[in-house]
Every structure is written in structure tokens, then in C-alpha cells.
């Protein structure tokens, strides 16, 4: 059995020459298949003498193993080649855009309310709400604005039709009626803010018939104007994100507070550009004061025992100042381009720990 060398050479060559998996399979069948050359040789072993059979069998088995190994190696190589070729043909244009996913926006008013809520929450305030269609008592009378008070005319009130009893409801002109509702419902100490819709019959470049205010009310036994200053200075600096923002308190007049103040923040108008912060100018942003004793009494709180402060500011106004939004009226136009530009992505939830605004 010394003629195995030519067979080995031929089979190994055939393996090496197999160009694809089909040809390789043909080589396998030709060599190791049921009718393959090595198999056929195996069958002849039975006719040999025992010693010769052992020797020939050993040689044939070695050849069989070698061919099988070569077949496997060649198969792996051919498979890898085939995969490479297939993948090379499977190329896509990765520069094409992916499937679109629409991105929503949060309105600047909502975002601003969330921001100021985060700040006032840290000073112990909770959020209160109240009806937009309000009784005259809560919107005016209880707030020390009697029917013929000049301040009532300045409110440009929207009226609803008179009711059977002659009274008529109004659209609330400020969020202050919620002060009254809260004091009539809860016992002091009270610390609330009231963000919400307000209505005045005025429509021009700087007035909208609907806008938003946030009201604040603190009632306890000891809060005084020093606390009022502390509370609002902290708010202004946190909201505008300017640690040393100049804040000025100026005497003013509101029927529902005494003493009353208006609050200005520092700004600069150099080059016609308004910038909040240190500068030569002041910009009024809110009104405030100690709750008028008559208002406390009207809401059933004993002014001899309790006192406190209140404040109110326009939400659009502070949003415009912080975010550089030039025109009040655009807030309500629902122009998709405006909303996408000035709106906030939904994941931007304002927190004090993470920062109010990017």
C-alpha cells in the first residue's frame, strides 16, 4: 500500500482548487463519500492479511483525517470569503437620513411657570389655583377695590352678562382673587404662589386680552418688608440666573397692599439692546407690598394677629426678558416656527438641583 502518496497529492490539490462550497462538497464526496476513493480503499482492507491490514488501515485513516482536516479548513476559508463578498455587495448609503421622529416643544409660558415654581417651592411655597370667571367680591371688593375706585377702571375688566340677582361675573383681571379664596379656606401660616391666566380688555403691541400672572402670598405672624425683600431678591437672582443682579424696591400704590412697592431690576440699554444685569438703567418687573389690613379682614384673617406680604408679576414679561422674546402677542399666535424656536424640549424639566435653564 505505498501508492497512497499520489492519491493524497491529488485529493489535497482538489481541495485546494475547490473554488466554492459546491466544488468542495464534490471533492468531499469524491474522497470521503460513500463511494469516495478513500472509502472504496477502506472496503478493500478486508481482503488483506491481518498485519498488512493493520498497516494499510492505519495509513488510510491518516489520509482520511488529513483530507477531512483540509476540507474543513478549506470550507472555513471559502465561507469567510463568501461572507466577505456578500457583505461587500450588501453596502447601503449610510449618508441617507434616518426615519423621522418628530420633536415636540413646551411653550415658554409653561416652562417659565415650572421655573418659578421650582424657585418658590424652595422657599416653602405651594401652588394654588382659582377660577378664571370670578365674582366681583374676590376680584375687587375683598381686595379693597370698592366699586367706584379709580383702580377698578384701570383694570379694563371683561364682564359677563348680569345674573338674575343683578350681580355680574368678571374675567379675573389678576390672580389676586386666589389670595382671598386661599385665606378664606386655609388658616395661616400661608405661603402660596398662584400662576395662571388673567384677562384685561386691552389689545395692542404691549397688551394682550389674555396673559399670565403669578401671585404670591405669605401670611403669618411675623413676616415683614425685610422678608418681602429677601424673598423677591432671591427669586429675581435665581430666575434670571445672575447672582448679583441689582434689585431695587420703590414705593408705589396698590389698593390691596400697604406699604406697597414696585421692584426694579438692573439693566443696560446700551446700543439699543436690553441686557438684564448691572447697568445704568432699571426695569420694573413686579409689584408687591404688605397685605392691606382691610384685605386680611375681608378674607376673615385677624389683622391684629396676622400680617404678611403679597406680590404679583407678569409671566410673559419675565419670560420675554429672560429669553429675549421681543413681542408679547406672538405668545398666543401658535405659529409653529415661533413655538419651535422659543419652545423648550420636553426633557428640559427645570430643577434647582440641575439648573433651571440651559
Amino acid at each position: 500500500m505505498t501508492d497512497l502518496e499520489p492519491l493524497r497529492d491529488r485529493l489535497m490539490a482538489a481541495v485546494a482548487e475547490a473554488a466554492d462550497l459546491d466544488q468542495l462538497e464534490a471533492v468531499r464526496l469524491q474522497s470521503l463519500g460513500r463511494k469516495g476513493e478513500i472509502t472504496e480503499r477502506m472496503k478493500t482492507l478486508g481482503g488483506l492479511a491481518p498485519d498488512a491490514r493493520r498497516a494499510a488501515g492505519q495509513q488510510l485513516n491518516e489520509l482520511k483525517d488529513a483530507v477531512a482536516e483540509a476540507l474543513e479548513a478549506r470550507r472555513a476559508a471559502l465561507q469567510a470569503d463568501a461572507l466577505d463578498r456578500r457583505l461587500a455587495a450588501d453596502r447601503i448609503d449610510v449618508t441617507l437620513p434616518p426615519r423621522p421622529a418628530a420633536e415636540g416643544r413646551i411653550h415658554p409660558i409653561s416652562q417659565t411657570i415650572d421655573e418659578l415654581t421650582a424657585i418658590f417651592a424652595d422657599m416653602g411655597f405651594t401652588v394654588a389655583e382659582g377660577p378664571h370667571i370670578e365674582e366681583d367680591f374676590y376680584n375687587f371688593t375683598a381686595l379693597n377695590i370698592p366699586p367706584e375706585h379709580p383702580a377698578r377702571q384701570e383694570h379694563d375688566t371683561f364682564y359677563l352678562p348680569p345674573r338674575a340677582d343683578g350681580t355680574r361675573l368678571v374675567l379675573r383681571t389678576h390672580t389676586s382673587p386666589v389670595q382671598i379664596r386661599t385665606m378664606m379656606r386655609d388658616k395661616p401660616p400661608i405661603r402660596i404662589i398662584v400662576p395662571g391666566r388673567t384677562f384685561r380688555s386691552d389689545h395692542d403691541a404691549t397688551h394682550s386680552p389674555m396673559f399670565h400672572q403669578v401671585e404670591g402670598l405669605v401670611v403669618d405672624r411675623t413676616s415683614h418688608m425685610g422678608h418681602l425683600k429677601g424673598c423677591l431678591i432671591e427669586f429675581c437672582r435665581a430666575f434670571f440666573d445672575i447672582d448679583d443682579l441689582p434689585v431695587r424696591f420703590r414705593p408705589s400704590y396698590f389698593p390691596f397692599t400697604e406699604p406697597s412697592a414696585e421692584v426694579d431690576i438692573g439693566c443696560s440699554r446700551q446700543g439699543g439692546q436690553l441686557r438684564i444685569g448691572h447697568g445704568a438703567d432699571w426695569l420694573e418687573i413686579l409689584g408687591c407690598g404688605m397685605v392691606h389690613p382691610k384685605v386680611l379682614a375681608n378674607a376673615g384673617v385677624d389683622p391684629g394677629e396676622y400680617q404678611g406680604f403679597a406680590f404679583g408679576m407678569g409671566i410673559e414679561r419675565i419670560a420675554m426678558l429672560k429669553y429675549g422674546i421681543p413681542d408679547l402677542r406672538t405668545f398666543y399666535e401658535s405659529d409653529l416656527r415661533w413655538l419651535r424656536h422659543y419652545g423648550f424640549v420636553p426633557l428640559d424639566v427645570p430643577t434647582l438641583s440641575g439648573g433651571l435653564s440651559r
Partner: protein
Amino acid sequence: MKITLSWLKDHLETEADLATIAHRLTMLGHEVDAIDDPAARLSSFIVGHVVSAVQHPNADRLRVCVVDTGGDRVQVVCGAPNARAGMKGVFARAGTVIPRTGLLLKAGAIRGEASNGMLCSAYEMGLSDDHEGIIDLPTDAPVGQPFAPVMGLDDPVLDIKITPNRADCLGIRGIARDLAAAGVGRLKARPPVTVPGGFASPVGVRFDLPGELAAACPLYAGRYIRGVRNGPSPAWLQKRLLAVGLRPISALVDITNFFTLDIARPLHVFDADAVAGDIVVRMCVPGESLEALNGKAYELEGEMTAIADGDGVVGLGGVIGGQGTGCTEETVNVFVESALFDPIRTAATGRRLGLQTDARYRFERGVDPASAVAGIEAATRMILDLCGGEASEVVVTGAEPAHARTFVLRDSRVATLGGLPVPPEESRRILETLGATVRRSADALEVDVPSWRPDIEGEADLVEEVLRVHGYDAIPVVPLPREHAVTRPALTPAQRRVGHARRALAGRGMVEAVTFSFMPGGDAALFGGVGEALRLVNPISADLDVMRPSVLPNLIAAAGRNADRGFPDGALFEIGAHYADDTPEGQVLVAAGIRSGTAVERHWTGPARPVDAYDAKGDALAALSALGAPVDNLQTSLDAPGWYHPGRSGVLRLGPIAVARFGELHPAVLQAMGVKGPVVGFEVMIDAVPLPRGKGGHARPALTLSPFQPVGRDFAFLVDEAVSAEAVLRAVRAAERKLLAGVRIFDVYRGPGVPEGRKSVAVEVVLQPVGATLTEEEIDAVAARIVAQVAKATGGVLRG
């Protein structure tokens, strides 16, 4: 209110400069809106001495002048006929901006002669319309100095916002008094004037007011002055009135305006010869009218206070006088009125007639009740001084209403309310300078409030006076004490979940809008309409006249506007109220949204898909889920309101409670609103969604994970068209409660192989074994139960 610095200094002795005065005014609560300081504005225009003026060699009408500016000599070419050597004029150097034209003056040559400046006319300076020639200054005007003081143009004007409570500061003396209290100077004494009357007034005054209306005019002081000469008022008076924005009319009228501004004492002067008989103060009779001094006629009503004579109404108390009895150049005898009118009635009258006057402005805020007689005396003095004549005795009808008020200011109160410990002596000084009479008691001040301060009504007002004058800046800043070391939530669970819904909808690609709570009544009718109670009496415009019964129409209108701008595809939502009625409960908080145009835009990966009702349903479910609604338990009913497409809309209910509605908007509604479809929308009634019950803690239920593989089986049921998918799903769920881990419709098919009128609903069911792997027999048993239950509930059969 406008005041001039020199007028202020009539009342206030002060060395303070303009900036200090303005700053102190603002910090006293009298916000200075604007300061016009002509001296500063005109400082670059100086007195120039024309040294020589010769004929221009190349122009007949021009002269070549050499001007001595005090520092150098400048040649200018001048066309004014009055330009001449030796005169003094107003010189502007090249580089100056001319007030009238706003143009920059440039150096150059005019017809070959150098001109490096300009001699200015009053027209060019914006001082008058006279451009006949250049300003001719007095010969003693100091060369090189600003010209404005020479012409008396150096009186700065301050425009001050007087708050409505400070009627006293609608007179310059009131402002001066505040400044004096704040240490900016000393209030000049103004001793009361008395002009003895030489005869009894031939015009009498009578009240004809019903008892309950006596307050309409509690006091009327009048005085007859005979033999006056009414001409233009003197230059000083005209200049003052002009500076604060009033047009000089005649001496008599200007005098009344002067006292209105000077001491907030409105006066009126009748031409006594035009008054028929006595003056009667009475209520107007409906049907009466008045030709007023402003040239307009007014129809009068019974609530208005008339100043009448024998012929009819000659003035409206506190508002305006009549034309027929007004003073003219020919007036010889006058009757001066100085009265008190009810603030409320005066305001109502003016409002009713749409008439604002300086008198009304003061009376409605409260004129000093003690000023009537003092005012008429001071006015008499000035009339006699400027117009001559002879005064009668003063006729006083009625009486000064009681105005004496005393309040106690506890020594501690400025600190406990105002946060600033002001020594009581300082409080006393401030209050006394403001005109109060102050007495000391053991631990408090007893303060008699002056008559001109009706705004002071209690201790808190006294605290404000002290703080205001002392300065709010001095109040120390105190942080608000923390109740808790760690911040507590500011929002209730009900408020917090609204934010979740908002950000969930935005997370789905929707853009948040904020629209008005009102809308056009016509459109509202398409959305169920509103009752009369929700119709505004005074809408801002006809198309914002009702409270909205739904949030959708404003969003649909917005989508229409966006489409008109070229953006037809959009997803807008709003969280806000709609109004079912005018009660607080009728204000319903809603999360509403719309999608319009295409839901999936045309893309290389696939075709565009228009929005459909399922987009809106998905939005509604997302919002409901964010609100904490058990969305798996929702049932869909087909009774959405009429603004939805009747066949493509539904109502999502938790038991009987409708928590949301969704669907395609009705094409007729869109057409009526002029918006191109398709538009789909949803409305989630936030407060209808029950709040998850707090179980006292945040722990989740224990999690049991099965080690056995879930098994999936698909079913295709043939059901009648009318059978809802929800009914099939419900039947599947009912058939197997323990093992069922999921059920999903993955195909709905109509067509070949499915009989007419029926549809095939293909459902994937996932079973999750709990105790052991499911055997084929167990799975078959579940499947059989599912098939049976679907058959029982819907009549559906397995598709062969």
C-alpha cells in the same frame, strides 16, 4: 404729571441738582418717567458775536459772517436777512445736530466761501415756527456761553407718575412737601392770602340737592370780581403752562390752570354777565345738554352734578364748564368757583361722557377738602394782580366735610411691619414735615392726618409714610425662614400629573400652544355653542366674544394659519380650561391636541401617511397614561360629540365616566372654519381621571418572574363588520385570566376568502406559564376556551 424745576423751587428751597431730585422723587414713590433738560439738550448751542457780516461775493442773498465764539473766530455763510455785524446770535459749530431737522451740521463751502457752522433761527432750534431770521440775542448775552439760559430755556421738565392715591401730589406743592420730608430741601412757607371783599356778590349760590345726594357737592365757594381786563397772561405764566404741556388761553383761564397745577385746587371762572341769576347746584335733568368749553355738546343724565343758572346747565361739577358762560377777551365781570365735588360721582360722570379733564382727574382722586376757600382767595389775589378789578365778599354755601382723622403709630410697628427700626423721633419728624400733627403717648405716636391726605387710613399707611420717606433701600434684607430643612413639593399630585401629561405629549412630537380662553361665537356654535352666561358683554373684538366651550377650535384655527404660512403638517396641543358654564366647576381643565396633514411625511423609506383617528387616540392614551389612568381598563364608546366625524371618533370611558374623546374632526366643521383637512384631535378631561389612591408609600408590588418560556399562539376570527376589535379583545381576556400575558391584534383583513359583511381579526395571544412548562394539551385547552368565548361574545368563528 409734568412739572418744571423752577416751579418746584417756588415751593422748595433746595440746592439739590436735577439728578438728585429725580432720584429722590422716584424713591419716594413718584416715579420720574422722563426728564427733559433743555439746558443739557441745547448745551452745544452757544452765544456767538457776529464780528463782521459782508455780502457773499457769489450770491445776492447770502452773507459771509465771522463769528466770535469766545474761543476762536469761525466763518459761516448765512442767508438770514437780519444777520449783521455786532449782533449776538445762537451759534452752532460744524458737528452739531440741528434739533428741528435732526441733521448733522457739516463744515463745507457755500458758493465758494467756507462755512464752518451756523447761526440758528428759532425754527431750526425747534422753538417756534418763525423762520424769518436768525435768533437775535440781547447784546449783553455772554459770548461763548450756552444760549439756553439767556432765553430762559434752561428750566428742566420732569414727567412724574403720580400714583392714584396721591391726589395731593397732583399739585406741585405736594411734591415739594414730600421732597422736603425726604431731606431734599425746605418747604417754603406760603402764608394764607386773604383779599377783603368790597361788596356783596350779586350772584348767589344755592343748593338744590336732595338730602341723600348732599355729598355730591358739600361745599361751594364763589366770588364776584368786577371790572377785570382779560387778555393774554404774562410771559412767565404762559411759559410755565407751555412747559408742562398746557396751551395758554387767557389770563383768567391760565390762572385757574395755574392753581390746578400749583396746589391741586381746580377752579372755574364764569363770565358773570353770561350767568342768568344765581348759581344753583343740582342734579342734571335727563334731556338737558351742555355745550362744553372743549367745543363739544354733551347729553346729560340724572346722576350728574349740574352747576346751573336760571337758563340751564352752565357746568358739570368737577368735570368741565360750559362754553356759553366761559371767559372771553371781552369779559369784564367774573364769578369764580372753588368747590368740592364727590369723587365717585365726578368719575362716573366723566366716564359716562368719555371726558377727561384736569379738574376731573383731581376731583376723582380727592381734592383737599380744606382748600376751597384758601383756593379762591389765592386765585382772587392773582386775578386782581394780573387783570385788575374789584372783588366781592366770598359766598360760601355748604360746609367743609369732616376730615379730621387721628391714627396711632406704635413705636414698634415700623420695625415689625416694615422691617426697619426707625427711631420714633425720626418717624415723628417725617410725619410732621408731611403736614401731620403728632402727639406722644407712652409707646406710640398719635397722628392727626392733614386734610390733603385722604389716602392715609390707618397705622399701615403711617408705616408706609415713614418707610417711604426714610427710603425702602434702608430696609434690611431678611431671608424667608425655612419651615423645613429639605424642600417639600409645591405641587399636589393632581397638579403634578398635569405637568406629566404636558411633557408626555411634547415627548410624542406635539408642540404646546397657549391660546386665548375666548373665541369667536360663530365658531363656538360648531363646538356645542355657549350659553348667554358665557358671552362677554364687552369683548375686545367681535371674534373674541365667548368663552370657549372646547379648546379644539383655537388649535384648529392655528393649524389653518400655519397651513396658510406653508406649514400644513403640525401637531399642536394645549392644556387649559374650557368652560361649560360660569361656575368654578364649569371650568374644566383639558389636555387637547390636534394633528393635521400628514402623520408620517414622505420619506425615502416609505410613503407618506395622512393623520388618522388612531394618531389622536394614541395621543389621548399617552396623556391618560401620564395622568395615571388605568388605560387597560378603558372602554371605547361611539358617542363622541358632533364636532367629530361620526364614523371615525370615540369616547374613552372608565366605567361610565368619559375621560377623553378623540377622532377625525367633522369635515363640515373644518369647512366652516376654512381649514383644510384631514385634522384629527383629542380632548382629555384631566380632572375626570381619578387620582391613583395613595396607599401610604412608594413601594411597588412584589415582582414574580416566571422561569418558564412564554408561548405565543395566533388566532384569526371571522366576525361581523359590526363587531368591534375591543369586543374581540375583551372576549379573549375573559377566556383566560391566569395565563394570559398579552393579547394583540396584528391584522384586520377583508377581501377574498372572507365573506361579504365580515372581517378577519387576527390576534396574537401570549401565555405565560407560572408553575411548569405548558403541555400541548394545556395550550390546546386554553385555545379552545378562547375560541369558545369569542364565539359566545361576538359570534366570531376561527377562520378555516
